[in-house]
């Protein structure tokens, strides 16, 4: 019976064919993997208990990612139902190993990169992440045209785009959410151009397709990949969990305070 911390954060990538699954599909894949791993996942209370796992900002269906995160919470399991127990007998290495084992049980294309223990209960991924980096590959426009349109967007005071929210069409201003946007040569397949963007997640996230609608509706999305998610702490950007296993954000501060 191995011992594990009460909370862990897992960083993973989503690449290849599995990018066509939705965030909901992704959550279900995690739930199945956790049951197979026989870990004492904590469940919600109530009529239809669900495992307590939380994700960062939903990745749109069809997009890849180099930086996805899931926070897992463990608790008590009935006798015989789990092969691990919450306790102090863990090390950063044993937690990393736990993450690798979970990765083996996830569908191909969801690959665990790093895993670390989380201290305390603060630091919700949804609330903390403030912006994301994206690489977006597009067609339907020449390089010069695309550069023009990008410059036009950046110099505009407002960029109204139509979105559907709760079944209703609303007009949102895209401009404040575009923190940076540059064109960057050709994409990975012929005839495509590459855009690099930093998009804010507050008050609500912007999808690559919505960014393109704001640049020019004639542009067609070919490929999009989230390359990073950022937590802003006093003007400095931190990743929720670096590829070498360092935790960022509120959970990190708590760890520092406790001298860990």
């Amino acid at each position, binding site marked *: 019976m191995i011992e594990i911390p009460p909370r862990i954060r897992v960083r993973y990538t989503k690449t290849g*064919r*599995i990018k*066509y*699954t*939705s965030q*909901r*599909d992704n959550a*279900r*894949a995690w*739930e*199945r*993997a*956790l*049951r*197979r791993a026989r870990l004492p996942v904590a*469940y919600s209370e109530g*009529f*239809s*208990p669900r495992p307590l796992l939380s994700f960062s900002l939903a990745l749109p*269906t*069809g997009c890849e990612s180099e930086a996805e995160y899931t926070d897992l919470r463990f608790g008590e*399991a*009935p*006798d*015989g*139902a*789990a092969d691990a127990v919450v306790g102090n007998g863990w090390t950063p290495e044993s937690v990393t190993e736990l993450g690798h084992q979970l990765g083996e*049980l996830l*569908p*191909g*294309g969801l690959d665990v990169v790093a895993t670390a223990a989380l201290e305390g209960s603060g630091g919700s991924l949804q609330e903390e992440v403030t912006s994301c980096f994206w690489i977006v590959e597009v067609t339907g426009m020449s390089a010069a045209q695309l550069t023009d349109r990008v410059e036009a967007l950046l110099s505009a005071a407002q960029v109204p785009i139509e979105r559907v929210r709760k079944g209703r069409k609303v007009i949102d201003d895209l401009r404040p959410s575009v923190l940076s946007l540059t064109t960057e040569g050709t994409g990975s397949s012929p005839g495509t151009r590459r855009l690099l963007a930093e998009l804010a997640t507050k008050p609500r996230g912007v999808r690559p397709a919505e960014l393109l609608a704001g640049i020019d509706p004639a542009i067609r*999305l*070919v490929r999009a990949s989230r390359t990073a998610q950022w937590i802003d702490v006093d003007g400095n950007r931190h990743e929720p969990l670096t590829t070498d296993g360092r935790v960022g954000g509120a959970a990190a501060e708590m760890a520092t305070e406790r001298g860990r």
Partner: protein
Amino acid sequence: MPSVFEQIEPILFGVERPARYVGGEMGAQEPEHGPGIVSWLLAYPDTYEIGLPNQGLQILYEILNERDDAAAERTYAPWTDMEAAMRAEGIPLFSVEGHLPAHEFHVMAFNLSAELTYTNVLNMLDLGGIPIRTEDRGALDTIVIAGGHCTYNPEPLASFLDAVVLGDGEEVVSEITVVVGEWLAMDATTRSRLDLHRLLAGVEGVYVPSLYQPIFDGPRQVGLEILDPAAPSVIEKRTVADLGDWPYPMNQLVPLTEVVHDRLNVEVFRGCTRGCRFCQAGMITRPVRERPAAQVAEMVARGIERTGYDEVTLTSLSTADFSGIEQVVAGVVDDPAHGGRVSVSLPSLRVDAFTVGTAAKIQQVKRTGLTFAPEGGTWRMRRVINKLISDDDLFAAVDAAFSQGWRRIKLYFLIGLPTETDADVLGIAELGARCVEIGKRYHQTVTVSASVGGFVPKPQTPFQWYGQNSVEELTRKVVLLRNAARATRGLTIKWHEPAATGAEGIVSRGDRRLGDVLEQVWREGGIFQEWSEHFDLSKFQQALSDHGLRMEDYTTRDRDLDEVLPWDHLSAGLHRDFLVGEWLDAIEEVGVEDCRWTPCYDCGACTTYGIEHVVASNEPPAGGSQGTGQGLDLGAPVPVLLGRPGG
């Protein structure tokens, strides 16, 4: 074979739910194709979400891929947005494993579970680059086969199918693989389609429509000419004698994206002898063959461990009838390895208080609604259809359910049954009101919902001669019932679209002339007809009329007992005398007992094939009730009212 994946990738961003086109399920296989290997494309003529869980298809997928001389992949009907994009880009229907074009496979085999999917079969052939009509296929074209419950009258699709399989597929797929392999080994410049058809006709349980020519006179079929000496005069179904020999699927597919019945499924028995006279599944799958309880337990334990699912469905036509069901359920629910987090669901409950106790055990994890299927609103009606649930049994079951904490009860009924009067229809509302009354003894508010489907007579059943209710008559009865139910708060009536019942009725007992009709409906865009947003009865009516046929001849017309039926040459083992006797008893309101626990009345299913029931206990289940036996077989028709899953 060339993969089309690179071609479909650019269009996947623009279609709904793209995950259904990429495969990648846990349990998916990547079989090798090559010389000496017969390649099968197993097809379900509906969306991925509906088709993927189909257990029959998954069983054959595993059996074929275990063979050295076969390779099987799968395909499903692309949704309309995907199909439009594929046709615009010239991309053929493809398999979800290797993304190989359908026309590259040697055999394309459809699972036919619902009549309203037939136009999708034509669409998938066409999209796959396969000539839709058998007569237009040559020595190099894909061989088109169908299996599944609807094949007990395949005549409406006969012009499009090289061969049709009757009954259980576990053994016959291997035999077909061998003869197809023989044909493929012949010189491609000299071998003919007729050679293939003769070889296939020699396999027991395989019907080759092109070797038979129906003869018509007016609205009726009056004969069947056998065109080739290789063609048997009667084709007998295939039956697996012992389910314990076939513990499949061993690696149930776990899809990347959500599908219907998204949980572990373990088939606990096949066949049902409750004897409900409207139920085709209960007639064509006899006798009862139980899986050994130890094997069930092992399949459940291994399946949960392998898949990570937290729910298992024990499937069959009437799972509460499985010998020792309580112990099996308790074994799953109380298994310490599951930590109280694995729930069991039964696709159908028997209507009695005892069964509700089992349900309480089952649903201690998640207590959702309880469903019973009395099917008939009055005791008289239930005697006609031989669903012998007394009012007392029903009310005791409902009382037990409400007293044990349930607040929602769902009841299934059929309307348009033989001898039905308005009193029988109104009996549904009265029965529903009584259930609400019982519920109020235990809870302040309760919900009783009655789902009402229009009855479509099916081939190979005692009701195969009965002229079904017209669309107008069904509509009148629905209105009658709805108005009567308004008086009871807490009782809601849901009904299946009568027009869809009408269309299903055309095809259910249709003859070979309907091939032209189905082709026209398809050519005019009539696909996904079991989906309410696409269903259009007028396309069927127009096509019938354009071909000089009348809807009423296929639907509301009572067949004469001595009339030739289009499926007379296809046998589920049932003696004609048995079916006729049951039909006459129905009219006399006389019931028949379940032959699992009473002496054999020789329906023919066992005696024709020299097989017997395989049951662990010959004692009828406790509780005193007759059974349900409703037609909730896997892959049963998706009611049009449901709309899109999850949407």
